[in-house]
């Protein structure tokens, strides 16, 4: 049965279903159960379940042995999860905000990503690191970053950043069943958004992108929440007679570059919308790959519409300015199709 479910609840369901299916699956992170050490909390429903309540109430069904409130020490628990995979566990670790991954990066960069390779392909590290991305929450510079590109740069890990509840559930189940370390990035401003989601278990293959809107005039690739921005823009562009195709890569390592190239071959125009910083980013990465593979199909220059080369500011008007808007997308698309010069946002 399909019903409307929020992105946050879809993630909760995916974890719950996999924990029921496989007793090796455990969840560990800061406050994932919540309330550890406080006996006065009457029930698990009163505990946090993470700062956004994504993992709320899982502890009721699975107990504190499998839903574990970690210490505030990401290196310690990410490393312990890597080690636990050798003993046959399949841990899901939560890093409360992707911005905190710096505190555990060595374990991900030099160990999770490399153990299989360095030891001759004889082991695998089946673990998932869930973490929260994105600006627009008035959370300032250290709780608002995207950082997808940093992880996608590293061979040996897979990187997923879904844009809706349906994709989130199917991809998270696929990630938990994957034999490799997977970074699963959840956008905090998508948590309350609902779409149709089946009740039962299903998987979406990692590395397969999705055409969210079919069109013929211009290809717009959105990165995570920017898929929604691109879709809103596409509706308005349609009123001006511009038929935009919107693509959601969903996975960033591996990335479905063929899907993007096929679309570019059809439309001849490519705009990539990514709220992250402009340099060494997913946007420049996709632009580079399309230039390599489909340059002759392009009718004009590839454009990237991104956040700025500044940290994410707190001040609300500035933060709103930092994130690419629907109007920005419309402006870029119209100018691209008219062959007009576009000044880089600054």
């Amino acid at each position, binding site marked *: 049965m399909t019903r409307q479910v929020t992105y946050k609840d879809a993630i909760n369901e995916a974890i719950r279903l996999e924990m029921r299916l496989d007793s090796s699956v455990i969840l560990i992170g800061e406050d994932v159960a919540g309330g550890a050490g406080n006996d006065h909390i009457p029930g698990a429903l009163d505990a946090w379940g993470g700062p956004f309540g994504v993992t709320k109430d899982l502890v009721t069904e699975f107990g504190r042995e499998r839903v574990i409130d970690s*210490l505030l020490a990401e290196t310690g628990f990410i490393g312990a999860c890597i080690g636990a995979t050798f003993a046959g566990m399949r841990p899901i670790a939560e890093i409360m905000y992707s911005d905190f991954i710096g505190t555990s990066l060595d374990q991900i960069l030099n160990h999770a990503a490399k153990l299989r390779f360095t030891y001759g392909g004889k082991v695998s590290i089946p673990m998932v690191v869930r973490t929260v991305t994105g600006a627009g929450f008035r959370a300032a510079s250290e709780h608002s970053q995207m950082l997808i590109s940093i992880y996608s740069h590293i061979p040996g890990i897979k990187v997923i950043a879904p844009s809706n509840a349906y994709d989130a559930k199917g991809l998270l189940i696929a990630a938990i069943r994957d034999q490799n370390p997977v970074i699963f990035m959840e956008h905090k401003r998508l948590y309350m958004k609902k779409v149709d989601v089946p009740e039962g278990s299903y998987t979406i293959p990692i590395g397969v992108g999705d055409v969210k809107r079919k069109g013929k005039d211009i290809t717009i690739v959105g990165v995570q929440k920017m898929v929604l921005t691109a879709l809103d823009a596409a509706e308005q562009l349609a009123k001006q007679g511009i038929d935009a195709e919107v693509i959601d890569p969903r996975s960033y390592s591996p990335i479905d570059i063929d899907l993007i190239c096929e679309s570019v071959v059809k439309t001849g125009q490519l705009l990539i919308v990514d709220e992250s910083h402009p340099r060494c980013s997913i946007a420049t990465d996709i632009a580079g790959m399309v230039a390599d593979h489909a340059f002759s199909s392009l009718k004009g220059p590839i454009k990237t519409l991104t956040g700025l080369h500044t940290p994410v500011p707190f001040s609300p008007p500035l933060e709103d300015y930092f994130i690419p808007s629907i109007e920005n997308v419309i402006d870029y698309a119209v100018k691209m199709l008219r062959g007009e010069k576009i000044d880089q946002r600054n």
Partner: protein
Amino acid sequence: MFVKEMLANWKLMSLSREFDLYVKEFAKRDESVGYLHTSIGQEASSVGIIQQLRSDDWMTSTYRNHSHGVARGLDIYRMVAELLGRRTGYCKGLGGSMHIADQETNFIGSMGIVAGGIPIATGAAWGSKMKGSDQIALCLFGEGAVHQGAFHEGLEFAIKFKAPVLFVCENNLYAESTASNYHLLHESAIGYVEPFDIKAIKIDGNDYEAVEAATKECVEYVRKNKKPAFIESMTYKLSGQYEGDAETYKSAEEIAYWKARDPLISYKARILEIDPTVETKFSDFERENQLHISDAFEKAFNDPFPTIDDMHHAVYLEQEVGS
């Protein structure tokens, strides 16, 4: 029987020593062996500790891992093949000297980051406990590692979540070229675990019998109580940080002092004290070990290098989608 066991231990220590001596000489004429960190001088510590493990216990090491691999009973030929980057090596030649591992003997791996293995060994022990197994993990590292966050975070994790892991700090008095009397903020590494509720002992790592007794006790403690313990094993690297290190930071007096405490010499003397009739065994063992190692080099040298496909297949484990 007792002397027979002691002789077997000495032979294993000698195998580790001869391995490193051969590798040092080899590196002088062939640079293809890459970064080498030998264990010369630390054999009593490594063999005495690792011999106390059960064959299914987990183990992690660092880039100074030759003595650990030998002590775990790894095949010398496959270790040599790894050092030479050959496809027949333990890691198909993709790891090299610094990253020897053997999944068949639960030797999880050798980490290039000094404290990197500390949370990982902890996790293997923790995972085994969750699986209902009584396996423990041995985590070996040098005293330079106590400064890294991973040491503190791994230790805290092990204590908080009662992971049956034995942490062994082989204090060889130098972090690279920096003396431990400069870089340790306590008198020795054990000072760093004193604030925690963890069984901790400091031993003379060059005294095989002391190492054996202390480790046996700690292994039993960890397995029985399902909680961590810590050993600081005092030793000395008689070779440099890596091959080619001129070791100018060591004084002649210091080197002479430690050469007189060479664990192979002292353990041999101890065995002869018990049974003087075995005198001739030692040179026989050395010759046998030397031959074993030179044969391994000769054989591995002609082995193929890994293929480009081997490299690509080692990045991800591919599987059926959704399975």
